[in-house]
Structure formats: structure tokens, C-alpha cells
């Protein structure tokens, strides 16, 4: 049996992608929010027992409006569809949050799935961001169509993404681990004319 040290075995999907251009004067800044806990939650939004149990655990009510999100400290909740949400929680707490949700919703017809290892959170900001988004996604990112807090599942460079607009004008993108190499290579190429900094 192979012994390996679990404390150092975690690897970010973007661990080996540090090359960047014109970093000193970069128009696009990428910052990966590594190792957050990602939980997929499904349940009946019409069932008060479900919604109140989730609110008790998360300390915040589930967002019910399409494409909306809520925040409570380190916890972020994205609306994905009428009976599905993505919970992004602090690194290492996902196991506890999952256990708390399961005990609070004991006996209910629900699903909680830990998908932390399958995806990662990336923040994009900078003066070249608007133009970068315009050539990367089919979604209209104008502020009139994409206000702060809105969550949109769409395509970014033809790969699936879930993106959220933050108060500082930057975007948080959830990307698949298996597409992270492709995502970064696209980003590096698409941001070449503005300069890319990997923070």
C-alpha cells in the first residue's frame, strides 16, 4: 500500500499555469480562488420544510429569482435552475456544511453533492475585461443586462461556465477542472493585447 501525505496532495486545476505577458501593465487580471468548497443542492422550492432547513444551516435564504445570488460571509449561493443551487463555501468546510444540510433535511427528498474537486472559481478583472468578455462569451455583459449579483450559466470560449458579476465590476467564473487548461490557454491568448497578470 502506498502511503502519501494527504496534507500536501491537493493540487489546483490551474497549478502549472503561471506564464503571463505584460504583467506590470496588465489590462486583465486573473486570480484563482483555490480550494473553495462547492456543493450542488437540489430540492423543492415550494416545500417550506426544505427552504427553512437550508436557511437555518446557511444563515441566508435560498435565492429564488432566476439568475440571482446571495452572499453571507464566505458563503455564496447561486441560483442554477428552479430546483437547483450551487453553494460555494470556505475551504475545508464543505464536509461539515454537507453534513449539517443532511441532518437538517433528514427524510426529505433532496440531494446534496460535493463537487469541489470538479471545478474551480476564477476572478477576472481589469481595464480590458469588457473587451475580453465580448470576445469570449455569447452572453451580453453590458451592465444594463448583467447587473451586480446576477448569475449566468452560459458558454465562455465555447466551454460551459457559471459567471457572477461582483460589486467591483469583476466577474467570478466557475469553470470545470477538466477544461481549466483550455480555459487558461484561451485567456492567455485572448488577453494578449491587453496584457495578462496572474495574481
Amino acid at each position, binding site marked *: 500500500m502506498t502511503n502519501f501525505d494527504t496534507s500536501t496532495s491537493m493540487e489546483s486545476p490551474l497549478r502549472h499555469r503561471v506564464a503571463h505577458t505584460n504583467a506590470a501593465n496588465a489590462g486583465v487580471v486573473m486570480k484563482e480562488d483555490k480550494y473553495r468548497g462547492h456543493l450542488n443542492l437540489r430540492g423543492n422550492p415550494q416545500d417550506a420544510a426544505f427552504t427553512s432547513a437550508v436557511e437555518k444551516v446557511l444563515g441566508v435564504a435560498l435565492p429564488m429569482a*432566476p*439568475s440571482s445570488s446571495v452572499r453571507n460571509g464566505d458563503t455564496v449561493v447561486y441560483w442554477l*435552475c*428552479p430546483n*437547483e443551487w450551487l453553494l460555494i463555501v470556505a475551504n475545508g468546510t464543505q464536509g461539515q456544511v454537507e453534513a449539517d444540510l443532511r441532518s437538517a433535511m433528514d427524510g426529505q427528498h433532496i440531494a446534496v453533492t460535493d463537487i469541489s474537486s470538479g471545478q474551480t472559481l476564477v476572478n477576472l478583472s481589469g481595464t480590458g475585461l469588457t473587451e475580453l468578455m465580448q470576445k469570449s462569451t*455569447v*452572453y451580453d455583459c453590458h451592465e444594463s443586462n448583467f447587473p451586480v449579483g446576477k448569475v449566468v*450559466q452560459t458558454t465562455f470560449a465555447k466551454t460551459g461556465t457559471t459567471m457572477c458579476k461582483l460589486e467591483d465590476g469583476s466577474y467570478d467564473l466557475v469553470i470545470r477542472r477538466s477544461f481549466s487548461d483550455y480555459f487558461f490557454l484561451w485567456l492567455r491568448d485572448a488577453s494578449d493585447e491587453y496584457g495578462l497578470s496572474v495574481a
Partner: protein
Amino acid sequence: MHHIYCPYCEEMREEEEYSYTGEAHIERPKDPAAISDEAWADYMFFRSNPRGIHHEMWYHAAGCRRYFNATRDTQSYKVHETYKMGEMPSITAETLAQAKGDAS
């Protein structure tokens, strides 16, 4: 650029996010063993192929990952309406013919 309204996301989205998944409102026979081979084959394999109004299922693959229904004109590609699963269309070939008759 062709935009289609998702009744679950409640907004227009680019066609690239969707995929077409076939004719809508096809009900699976409740007791397959009790029906004839012909009736089963009709359910399983045969689809209408109209020139004009067609009610069909679409899948918001890159978005909310829900199936919904659409009323589309196969000739012009115009999407007249989209509606949730379990709902019935408000626009049909008959209502459009009627509206055309009323206008003339």
C-alpha cells in the same frame, strides 16, 4: 445570432446555449404490453414532419439544463413561443390560420 427565450431562466439566450431534442407532447403508452406492435412503433419511431408550425422540445444545455417546449415554424425558423414542460401551446397552426382569416 438567434435568441430564444428560456421559460425557466426567464430571458432571451443565444441559440448556441440550446439543443433541439425532437417533437413535443408525445405520451408514452400507459400499458405498452397491451397495445399493438403498430401502435408501439408509431409511438417509438414515427414523428410528424410538418412544413410550418411544429411543437418541439428544446434543452437549455449550457444554461439551466431544463427541457422546455417551443412552437417553431420549420419554414422560417421563427420561434413563436416557448413554454414550460407540462404546459400546452397557446399558438398552433389552427390559431395562426384563424388569426390570418380574421385579418383579411
